[in-house]
């Protein structure tokens, strides 16, 4: 294995593109080092992107925030601007692992690891976040976060490409988001089900925009269009929330495994979607 720590994005993508064997990007390393240790992956090249200027920065942009690929969870959780704008995204990231893991693990790493149970991915998708993908020859493209992780452990990234940053857009007035997950204990486990909701209310408390995304109930995070439709135009009254719960349960496509059965995951998907919508609407109301 070769270790490289390039100083520019062009060098990093160039190294990844010219590598004949398996190459891996190293940011926080909390997934990669476990995979190396267990022999799950035997890369020829590891490219540490933390020496590239700007990678560990959170920068204001167009009313939103651009979060570099090497920003650890601990830094995101201490950033007042992001915490105010997207508390649901921050709470999702902060659910990943222990204090020690938070010192290293990144949102982009969580995305590119492409686990169906990744906590930050549904929250980023509900937020309408864009991933900036850098490629060889200095190319850059922005794609919706939901288009990056396309199956268990599989991304849409081409050889030589890496996700350089995540853009969290400006939040309209009276907007809120939330992420909830179920695990069998209070801390440090992998989601049995995750649910993210982001929404905007009008002055009368009526929902004018909504996104509902489920995690860990399909091979990739699942956008529930019917869930958004169930709460749009409502004040998130009991009837609307009950409808959201029903359609979220119906939309879930879980598997049976040691963490939960199909019927259990379906049930929980609906419950978490309803609760997340409730929290998101309360947060939206507080930001009037």
């Amino acid at each position, binding site marked *: 294995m070769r270790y490289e720590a390039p100083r520019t994005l062009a060098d990093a993508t160039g190294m990844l593109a010219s590598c004949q064997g398996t190459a891996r990007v190293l940011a926080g*390393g909390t997934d990669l080092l476990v995979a190396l240790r267990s022999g799950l992956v035997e890369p020829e090249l590891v490219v540490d992107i933390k020496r590239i200027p700007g990678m560990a920065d959170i920068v204001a942009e167009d009313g939103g925030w651009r979060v570099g690929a090497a920003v650890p969870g601990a830094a995101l959780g201490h950033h007042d601007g992001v915490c105010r704008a997207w508390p649901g995204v921050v709470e999702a990231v902060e659910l990943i692992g*222990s*204090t020690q*893991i938070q010192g290293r693990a990144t949102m982009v790493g969580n995305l590119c690891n492409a686990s169906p149970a990744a906590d930050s991915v549904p929250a980023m998708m509900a937020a309408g976040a864009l991933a900036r993908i850098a490629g060889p020859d200095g190319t850059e493209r922005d794609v919706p976060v939901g288009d990056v992780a396309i199956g268990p452990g599989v991304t849409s990234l081409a050889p030589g490409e890496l996700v350089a940053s995540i853009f969290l857009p400006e939040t309209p007035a009276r907007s809120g988001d939330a992420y909830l997950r179920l695990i069998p204990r209070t801390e440090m486990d992998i989601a049995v089900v995750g649910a993210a909701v982001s929404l905007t209310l009008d002055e009368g408390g009526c929902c004018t925009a909504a996104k509902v995304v489920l995690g860990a109930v399909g091979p990739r995070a699942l956008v529930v269009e019917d869930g958004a439709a169930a709460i749009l135009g409502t004040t998130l009254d009991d009837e609307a929330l009950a409808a959201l719960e029903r359609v979220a349960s119906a939309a879930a496509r879980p598997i049976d495994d040691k963490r939960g059965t199909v019927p259990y995951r379906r049930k929980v998907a609906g419950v978490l979607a309803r609760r997340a919508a409730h929290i998101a609407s309360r947060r939206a109301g507080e930001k009037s």
Partner: protein
Amino acid sequence: MSLQHVTTTVNGDATEFLCDAAETLLDALRDRLGLTGSKEGCASGDCGACSVMLDGRLVCSCLVLAAEADGREVETIEGMAGTGELHPLQTKFLELGALQCGICTPGFLVAAKALLDENPDPDETEVRYWLAGNLCRCTGYDKIIRAVLETAADLREE
């Protein structure tokens, strides 16, 4: 396999060593630098016995490549005590018997110090959540939590 040359600062001392590209910081600390205070429990980032500070952030050194430490500052359990005197957390752990076999203790101490540096007045829940990434298989958590809370109280009075 070519060796990486790493220049770093460990507990305030400029240090250099050679390591394999795939070698972890934990292995380099223990096997190259003789700093065996950091322990390997799980080698997968779950148990916290290898906790160190890297550029001021609490991390598991088993999940850091040694090569990543180049130009960075590493603080380990060996740097915690002052000259001839223990850190107040260490003294309190001894006083309250907040250890049994001791394997997890260096990680708990490094993590607890990081907490008190950031939050001098944590409540019990905050201490328990902060230390959730440090596992003690002798199940001595209550004494550890009490030691951290009492040290915090002592330090606030100073």
